[in-house]
C-alpha cells in the first residue's frame, strides 16, 4: 500500500487547508490512485470473507469437532477443557473477534494434536511449498511462451496442418492429465526404472526435478495453447499488417508487435495457472513426500487437527488472492489504454 501524503507542506503563512485538498484532488483525479484504491478495497473484502470462512469452518462441522478429534472414548471433562481452551464455549461473535485479534498478532492458534503453535508449523513448511510453486511457475513461463509463439508462427494462416494437429492434440491430452498421476508416472520412469532422480523428500537441486516437472507440465502445455491462439488472433490484426508493410523482419514483427499485444491474456491465464499450481502442490507433495504445507494439511485433516487446517487454508487462500492482485496490477501496467484502470 502506498500512503498518501495528505498533510500540507509546512506553510507557516496561512494555515489554510487548500494545499491539502488540492493534493487529495490530484490523487483522486489520478487513474492509478483510483485503480489501486479500488483494487486494494477488493482485496480487503476478499480477505475478510476468507478469514470469516476459515473461522466458520470449525463451526460448520456437524457435531462436536473436539469430540470428533479426541475420539468417542475421551473423558467428557477433557473434551470440556479443550473446548474451553479453544474458546468454543464463548458466543460466536466473541469468538470471531478473538480470532481476528489473534490473527493480527500473528497467532493462528495451537495444534490440537501436537500442541505446537500453528504459525510455527506454517513457518517451517511454507518455504518448501513456495519454492516448489515458484520453480514450477518459472518453468511454465520459460517453456510455454516461446513454445506457444513458435507454434503460432509455424502454423499461421493454416500452414503445417500436421504440426498444428500434433501440437493441439498432444497439448490437450497432456494438459488433461492431473499432476499427481503425472507424478506417479514420473516416479516410475525416472525414479524406479532409470533411477536418475530421487523420488522422495526435499534436498539438493535434483530432488526438485520430478516434483517441478509434475507440477509444471500440464499448465505449461495449457499456457502454450493459449499463447498460440492469442498470438494467432493478434496476427490477424491490422497493425500487424502495418508492421509487415513496413517490411520489418519477421522476428521483430512477432516480438515487438504480436507478442506484447497477446500479453494481456497470457498474464491472466498465467495468474490462474499460478493459483492452481499453488494448490496443486498439495497433491504433488504427497506423492514425493515433500515436507511442505500440503503434506501437513492432509495429515491434519485426517487427524481432525482443525486449527492447523484453518491456518493452512488461510495461507493458501491469501496466496491466491495476492497472485490475483499482482496479476491485475501487471495488467494495468501493460495496458497503455488504461481500460483496466478505468473500468
Amino acid at each position, binding site marked *: 500500500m502506498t500512503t498518501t501524503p495528505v498533510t500540507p507542506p509546512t506553510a507557516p503563512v496561512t494555515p489554510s487547508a487548500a494545499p491539502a485538498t488540492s493534493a487529495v484532488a490530484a490523487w483522486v483525479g489520478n487513474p492509478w490512485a483510483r485503480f489501486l484504491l479500488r483494487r486494494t478495497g477488493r482485496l480487503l473484502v476478499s480477505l475478510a470473507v476468507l478469514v470469516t470462512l476459515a473461522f466458520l469452518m470449525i463451526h460448520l462441522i456437524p457435531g462436536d469437532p473436539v469430540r470428533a478429534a479426541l475420539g468417542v472414548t475421551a473423558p467428557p471433562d477433557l473434551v470440556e477443557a479443550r473446548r474451553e481452551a479453544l474458546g468454543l464455549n464463548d458466543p460466536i461473535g466473541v469468538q470471531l473477534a478473538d480470532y481476528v485479534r489473534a490473527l493480527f498478532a500473528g497467532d493462528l492458534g495451537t495444534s490440537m494434536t501436537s500442541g505446537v503453535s500453528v504459525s510455527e508449523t506454517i513457518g517451517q513448511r511454507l518455504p518448501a511449498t513456495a519454492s516448489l510453486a515458484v520453480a514450477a511457475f518459472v518453468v511454465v513461463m520459460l517453456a510455454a511462451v516461446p513454445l506457444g509463439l513458435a507454434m503460432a508462427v509455424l502454423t499461421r494462416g493454416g500452414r503445417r*496442418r500436421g504440426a498444428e494437429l500434433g501440437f493441439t492434440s498432444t497439448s490437450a491430452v497432456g494438459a488433461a492429465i492431473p499432476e499427481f498421476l503425472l507424478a506417479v508416472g514420473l516416479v516410475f520412469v525416472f525414479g524406479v526404472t532409470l533411477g536418475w532422480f530421487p523420488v522422495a523428500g526435499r534436498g539438493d537441486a535434483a530432488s526438485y526435478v520430478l516434483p517441478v516437472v509434475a507440477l509444471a507440465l500440464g499448465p505449461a502445455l495449457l499456457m502454450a495453447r493459449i499463447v498460440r491462439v492469442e498470438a494467432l488472433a493478434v496476427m490477424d490484426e491490422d497493425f500487424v499488417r502495418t508492421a509487415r508493410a513496413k*517490411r520489418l523482419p519477421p522476428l521483430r514483427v512477432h516480438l515487438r508487435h504480436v507478442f506484447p499485444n497477446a500479453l494481456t491474456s497470457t498474464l491472466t491465464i498465467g495468474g490462474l495457472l499460478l*493459483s492452481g499450481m499453488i494448490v496443486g502442490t498439495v497433491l504433488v507433495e*504427497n506423492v514425493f513426500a515433500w515436507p511442505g504445507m500440503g503434506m501437513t494439511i492432509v495429515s491434519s485433516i485426517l487427524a481432525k487437527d482443525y486449527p492447523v487446517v484453518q491456518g493452512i487454508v488461510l495461507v493458501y487462500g491469501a496466496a491466491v488472492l495476492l497472485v490475483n492482485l499482482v496479476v491485475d496490477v501487471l495488467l494495468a501496467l501493460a495496458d497503455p489504454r488504461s481500460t483496466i484502470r478505468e473500468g
Partner: protein
Amino acid sequence: MGRDQWRAALRNPVGAAAAGLLVLLAVLAVVAPILWGDAAEETDPAALSQGSTSEHPLGTDALGRDIMLRVLVATRYSLGLALLATAICVVAGVLLGVLPAVLGRRAGRLVTGTVNLAVAFPGLLLALFFAVIFGVGARGAVLAIGLAGAPSFARLVQTNVAAVSGRDFVAAARLAGVGRFRLVARHLLPNIGEPLVVNATVMAGSALLAFAGLSFLGLGVQPPAYDWGRLLGEGLDRIYINPAAALAPGVAVVVAGLAFTLLGESIAQVVGVRAVRRRRPPVGDQAAAAAAAGSAPETPGDTVLVADDLRVGFPAPRGGWTYPVDGVGLTVRPGETVGIVGESGSGKSLTALAVAQLAPDTADVTAARLEVAGVEPRGRPESEVRELLGTKVAMVFQDPMTSFNPSMRVGTQLAEVTRVHEGQGRRAALARAVDRLRTVRVPAPERRAHQYPHEFSGGMRQRAMVAMGLMSTPELIIADEPTTALDVTVQRQVLRLLKDVQAETGAAVVLISHDIAVVAQLCERVVVMYAGRVVEELPVGQLGAAAHPYTRALLASVPDLATDRERPLATIPGRPPDPADRPEGCAFAPRCAFADDACRVRPGLAAVAPEQRAACWHPRSQPLDLVLDVLSGGRS
C-alpha cells in the same frame, strides 16, 4: 444441440474414440462387480505384495488380493461417485447461475459477487475446505467436489443466461408478463442447453480426476471400499516392488478422465469452425480464366508499378477456389497519381496488397508480370523483398485506429522503419520521426511522438500514418481508403497532405477508395474495378465522358459531382456478385440497364478514346455534366 451435431461429433475420430471408451467403461461398471466382485475381495496369504505372475497379471496387494480385478471392479464406484459429484455440481451451478435472473437486482448482484469471489479460488482448495466440513469419506468427498465445482459452473450459466436474456424473444416473454420462474424454465435454460451439456461432460472428467485425487490423499473413499484413487495411493507405497499396482489404477483414471474431456471438446469443436487449409490451386484453373482477362497496355518508358493479369485466389469453403482479384492489369508511372475505385468487394484493396507483397498467407497470388519499384518480387526470398521494397514502397492503411500497434508509442513505430532499413540509432531515428510528424502538421510533434495511438485523434492518426510512409523516400505510396473513417474537413486535409507529399517527394501515389469523388480530387487517372476486374480506366479530366455503365452509375451516385442537385441521387440497384458466384459474361450485367445477349460473353478492355479503355460491349458516348473539384496546389 441438434441431432446432426451429435452425429458429427461422433464422426470425428477423437469424439468417436472417446464415446467408444465411455460405452466400454459403462459396460464395465455394470458387469465387473457382478463377475469379479467376490474374487477381488479374496485374500491370498500365499501371495502377498507380489509382482506380476501368471495367476495375478498385475500382481497382488498387501493382503494378497488381485490388483487387476480390483481395478476393474473399482470402475463402478469411481464412475458412480464422479457422476454423482457432477450432478451436484450442475444442479448447484444452474441454481446459482439463474438466481440473479430470478432475484431482484440487489440480491442478484450479491449472488454474482459471491460466485465471482469463489471462482478466484482453485477448485482443489474449495474441495479441501468442504472436505473438512463434510468429513473424510466418500459422502463428504462427493459433496466437496460437487460444491467446489459449482461456482465455475454457475459463472458459465450466468454468462450464457446474460447473453440470452438480451435477445428479443426473452424481452417479448417479459413484456407478455411471463413469470420469472417460468421465464427461466421455458425460455432461458432451453436456449443455453448446448454449452451446458458440453461443459457438464468436461466437468464429469474433472470430477473423476478430482475424486481420484481426494481418494489418493486418503480423504475420499475409505477402506474396505475402494476406488481407483484409493488403489493408486496404496500402490504408490509399493511402487518399487510392484509398479503395476500404482500404474494400472493411474492409467484407468487418466483414460476415463480423458474420455469425458475429449468427448466434450469434440462436441464443442463441431459447433465451432474449422481453419482453412493452405493449398495451391490447380494450374489449369488459372489458365482457363486468364484467357479472357485484361492485360496492361504496352508501357513505354519507366514505371514504378506494372501488374499484368494479376490474380489473387482463396480456397473456397466448399472446395475449389474463388478469385476476388481476377486478372487485373495496372500500370503506374513515376510521380503519377492513380485512383482505384469500386464498391467494397470489387477487389481493389486486395489488388493493392497483392502488388505490395502483403496479401494474406492463405492467398495465392499469380501474375503474368509483376514489377514494383523496378523490382520483380516474385521468386525472391522474403528477406530480399523486404530489403528491396522496405524504403521504396509505403503503405497508408484505411483505419488508423486499428492500423497502429496500440501498445507502442507512435514515435517508436515511425522510428522503427528507419532503424530497421537504414540502420540508424534510436535517437536519430526518433528525431526523424518527430520531423516527419511536423511535416504532416501534427502539432507539438515532440510530445506527440511519445504518446500512444489512442491518445491521437482520428485525423491526426491518419496523418501520422502518412508520416510513417515518409520515413524513407518512397517511390510509390499506396493509400488504401485513407479518408474513410474521417469527417469531411479532415478528409480534405488528409487528401491535401497526400497531394503535397506527392508534389514534394515526386512519389507516385495509388489511392484506393470506394468514393469516386475522393479519387477525382486527387488523382490524374482513374481505374474503375468491378467484381475483381478493371472495367474502365481513363484520365480524371475525361470522367465526364465515362463509357462504362458502371463508372457512370458511380458518378451519378455522388452528390459532389452531380450538377443537377434538384434531381434525387441515383443509387446503383443490386449488389456486386459474390466472387464465388459471378455471372458468366459481363459481371455487371444483372445490374446494367443496357445488358443484352452480347453481354453473356465477357467483354475485354478496349480503347474507346485516347487514353481511355472500357470493358463493355455497349460503351456510352453521351457526355455527362460534372463539376470536377480538383484539389488546388498540386499539378493538374
